[in-house]
């Protein structure tokens, strides 16, 4: 049996529009309804902040502080299969570092906490996975791998810092017309140590993840279309060392690092072509949704633990029959704990009545007061 973590309670203080909020959740489907702007997404983000250590839907953690408040506090109680209770508290304060406490113990580094609980977030903005920059696609891969591979997190942090320092150095050299190879080498040494691990982990992830993605896509869009994710990295052909030698002059005269895992790309293909160029809106929506939703099953099989699923405003993207099918599947096959927001007060309830599903329905009014409309 897979380990399931179940969030029972959420307590917020000065989180976005909520000066104080206490919520109770059920182990299955939790539906948050209310008009646009009442703060449904904030609740999803609070959960994400607590289980992952960072928000997803908002731009930054700090932007979740209520207007005029000088601190924010969020807390959840989580139970695992053994009914063992866990507790997570996040505190944010202006001018101070974020503080996370897990079961009463202060977490000294975020990188040590990430992966404690798994989560998958789905947002209408995920469309940037197709339309956005390659940085957005790398972030998708990174946010997936860091949740189950601590060594990856460590290597990624080291690599990223080394590249930043090397870029600053190259820029200074360019400006001053000097060049000190022993100094660039010093930062390259760290890139050489870390890049192979990052590359290998991404290769394995993309290989394993592909079949989950294909399955999801065909469940969402049953019409026959061939889709494919192609991991594109210069490190697949050459070693980091060879690449740094090849690009030495380019880097030197452009004042930045032009090669490495920070330039990796994921090409997204539909019927052999770039989906960004050749896909219809509907195809792109299904593609992006499949990317995110398949992470759930991937995580479950890879780690033996069930992620918490946070779905924001998904009816924007997909029609009723598809959403219904996915929700029922997640529930039947996995017994997943799902949080879903919707502007329509009755839509999800209507979908699922008579299908034997219990819904914990929380409705939020415009003054941020709440009521439970459980059926």
């Amino acid at each position, binding site marked *: 049996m897979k380990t399931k973590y179940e969030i029972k309670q959420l307590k917020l203080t000065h989180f976005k529009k909520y000066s104080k909020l206490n919520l109770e959740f059920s182990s299955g489907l939790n539906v948050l309804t209310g008009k646009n702007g009442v703060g449904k997404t904030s609740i999803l983000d609070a959960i994400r902040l607590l289980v992952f250590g960072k928000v997803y839907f908002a731009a930054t953690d700090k932007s979740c502080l209520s207007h005029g408040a000088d601190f924010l506090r969020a807390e959840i109680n989580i139970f695992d299969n053994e009914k063992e209770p866990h507790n997570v508290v996040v505190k944010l304060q202006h001018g101070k570092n974020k503080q996370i406490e897990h079961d009463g113990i202060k977490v000294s580094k975020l990188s040590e906490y990430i992966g404690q609980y798994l989560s998958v977030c789905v947002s209408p903005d995920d469309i940037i996975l197709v339309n956005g920059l390659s940085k957005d696609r790398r972030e998708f891969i990174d946010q997936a791998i860091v949740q189950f591979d601590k060594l990856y997190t460590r290597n990624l942090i*080291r690599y990223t810092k080394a590249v*930043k320092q090397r870029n*600053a150095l190259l820029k200074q050299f360019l400006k001053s017309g000097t060049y000190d190879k022993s100094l660039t080498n*010093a*930062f390259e*040494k*760290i890139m050489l140590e870390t890049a192979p691990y990052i590359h290998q982990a991404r290769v394995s992830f993309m290989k394993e993840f592909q079949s989950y993605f294909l399955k999801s896509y065909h469940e969402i869009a049953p019409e026959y279309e061939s889709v494919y994710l192609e991991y594109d990295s210069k490190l697949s052909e050459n070693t980091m060392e060879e690449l740094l030698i090849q690009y030495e002059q380019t880097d030197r005269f452009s004042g930045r690092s032009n090669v490495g895992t920070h330039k990796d790309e994921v090409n997204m293909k539909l019927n052999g072509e770039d989906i960004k160029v050749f896909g219809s809106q509907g195809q792109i929506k299904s593609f992006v949704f499949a990317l995110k939703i398949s992470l759930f099953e991937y995580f479950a099989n890879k780690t033996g633990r069930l992620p918490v699923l946070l779905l924001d405003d998904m009816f924007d993207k997909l029609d009723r029959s598809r959403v219904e099918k996915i929700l029922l599947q997640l529930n039947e096959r996995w017994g997943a704990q799902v949080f879903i927001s919707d502007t329509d007060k009755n839509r999800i309830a209507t979908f699922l009545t008579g299908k034997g599903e219990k819904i914990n329905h929380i409705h939020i009014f415009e003054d941020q007061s709440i009521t439970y409309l459980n059926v």
Partner: protein
Amino acid sequence: MKFSSTLLENAVNAFSKLPGVGRKSALRMVLHLLKDQTQKSEKIIQGLLDVNEKLKTCKICYNYSDDDVCMICSDEHRLKNVLCVVESIRDVMAIEDTQQFSGRYHILGGVISPLDGVGPDDLNIDTLIQRVRHDNIEEIIMAVSPSIEGETTTFYISKKLKPLEVKISLIARGVSFGGDLEYADELTLGRSIVSRTPYLQS
């Protein structure tokens, strides 16, 4: 905070500029000094004036010193051929507290960090190389922080020292050191110096 006197307010403002001192603790300190009968204020003022006017930097290791050469560098009982390389004066004090190291020090004044505008020329690296070249140094113990910047600094220094064939070692990993030296407990820090490992050049 409302004051009945601008003199009092000025004193509190001055104290609250110190690191880690808020206005409340500043007020407490000032009120304490006002009530004191033992000339505490005068001693503090004299101490600070002396430090400001007379304190020197040791021209060998860059530690603070009364004279041109500090008490550690001029101590004939200390090993002359082993140097411990640290970032700051506070690191020297933390290592001295362990009583496990009987060599001498070299204070870099930071680590290489282009993002912060700190390059090798801003640090006491050249003088370190001079010391190794001219003072018969046999071993360098690198005790800088285990950050990317610390590692890079160690690597850079090791490259510069390569032609001089001096032995380079690292203080044992796993304990916090470098920038955190002052927070490491004496026992673990002491052990990490004793059980240092050779730095492997690649």
